[in-house]
């Protein structure tokens, strides 16, 4: 397939397919989680589960002193990675245009720097995983797959912008295709946490709230 045709395919049919699988998969996963159901708690609630749940959805985004003191690097790297991804996805003008949002956007040089930091942060995360005996034991193929499909869009986007290795058109097509790979696989890997974190935190907070303990 000639590069322009590839780009047309990536921007059109492929994107629609990938998006359909993403939406379908994510909803299916969320339904599965919700429908698992929980045994009804027959004890009298000491406090509101509702407020506890809502609070925890946000409070868990902040580090806990005790946990942070134990693994400051991992937690810091986690912040850098997630904030980096958020910035490059939502504050680059062409992406804003794609998402149909009304945001101001940042200059290319800022996005460029954040991309490099995010890529470095992903590699730092990989090293930590490889050198931690505990993580080694609990890591599965899925973890490494999730890491790879997160990395690919960053790398291809960076290379397209800087005209590295391949012609811009071709690299742009690969960049879009790598995002589509991410969309297709996200519902079936640990990347579901982009949505399911809300449910998990809510449930923890809800339980703690009912028991009247901190969460």
């Amino acid at each position: 397939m000639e590069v322009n045709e590839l780009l047309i395919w990536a921007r059109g049919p492929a994107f629609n397919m990938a998006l359909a699988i993403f939406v379908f998969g994510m909803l299916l996963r969320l339904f599965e989680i919700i429908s698992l159901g929980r045994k009804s708690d027959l004890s009298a609630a000491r406090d509101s589960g509702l407020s506890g749940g809502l609070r925890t959805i946000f409070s868990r985004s902040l580090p806990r002193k005790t946990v942070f003191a134990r693994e400051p690097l991992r937690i810091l790297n986690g912040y850098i990675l997630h904030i980096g991804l958020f910035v490059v996805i939502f504050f680059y003008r062409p992406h804003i245009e794609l998402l149909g949002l009304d945001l101001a956007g940042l200059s290319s040089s800022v996005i460029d720097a954040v991309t490099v930091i995010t890529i470095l942060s992903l590699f730092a995360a990989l090293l930590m995983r490889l050198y931690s005996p505990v993580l080694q034991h609990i890591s599965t193929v899925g973890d490494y797959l999730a890491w790879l499909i997160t990395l690919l869009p960053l790398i291809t986007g960076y290379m397209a912008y800087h005209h590295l290795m391949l012609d811009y058109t071709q690299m742009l097509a690969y960049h879009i295709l790598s995002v589509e790979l991410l969309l297709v696989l996200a519902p079936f890997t640990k990347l579901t946490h982009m949505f399911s974190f809300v449910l998990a935190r809510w449930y923890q907070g809800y339980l703690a709230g009912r028991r009247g303990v901190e969460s």
Partner: protein
Amino acid sequence: MSQLKRNNSQISETFVDHLEQHGVSRRGFLKFCSSMAAALALPTGSADVMAEALSAAKRPTVIWLSFQECTGCTESITRSHTPTIENLIFDFISLDYHHTLQVAAGHQAEEARDMAMKDAYGKYLLIVDGSIPTKDGGVYSTIAGRTNLSMLEEAAAGAAAVISVGTCAAYGGLPMAKPNPTGAVAVTDIVKDKPVMNIPGCPPIGLVMTSAIAHFLTFARLPDMDELGRPKAFYGDSIHDRCYRRTFYDQGLFAKAFDDEGARKGWCLYELGCKGPTTHNACATMKWNEGTSFPIESGHPCLGCSEPNFWDAGSFYEALSVPQGRVGETVLKAAAVGVGVGVAAAALNRSNKSAAVEGRETMTVEDLKKES
């Protein structure tokens, strides 16, 4: 007929002889060579090499065939300067057939073509504009009762090289746009055994056409080309990389409507659908109409007209990053299916669970004893 014969006798004449006859001095010739070397972005010193090569070169026969096209390419080439099309026709080539520019018509014109092909067999330069319809035996475009397909096959057989002028001849162009009712194809789909150079664009810049032709005349071969068969000297850079508005792209400053503040300030046209980043052409450097301006300079985004399939690449006025197709519909349908299957999966899980609960057998102390 006598005029045709005289034309053919001129084929053997060298450029310099011909120029002298037309009152062009050696200095004029050297000046022309420097300007050509500059236009073709040849390394310094090439003008002298060019002058030497051209001094001995013969004026080649050129046959120009127009197929499924709009004559925009011919319109554009007549606006070339340095060399002008007149320069080319009168001084450098023997243009023996071009059904728009030639005076002869009807049988006389076709005879001129036949004769030129016969006399310069294996040596003439064939220029084609327009795509070639192949469906239903190629009946959708004919000249003097002959299909474009048969005319091209015959003319290409005796050509030294072929130049496809315009996106239609180079890549199929508008006639090939979906659903391609005439089965239009590019020249390279038909001509496989001859060197073919593509000069795409809708239309191409006149100067690019004449300069590329001049290159063939000077060096008797086609210039260096990219994988899409385009001369690198003109199609090596993307519009975006050479665009004077590029700095606004990098600063994140974009026009969002054709008459907003950003547009008036000359900001980047990416969000108005500019295809500059994926389009390779010389518009941003050579510009149009004797260096006056180019579309982006006039405030309009690049359509990407020199790239294959540009007409099927979605809206001209949507940003390159915006996906094409009915995305909203896709999301709704996928969501509906997702919810449906999700509910079904949930129901299945629950029925499995209750079946498991119901299917439980009570175990007594006696049972345990039996097993041990």
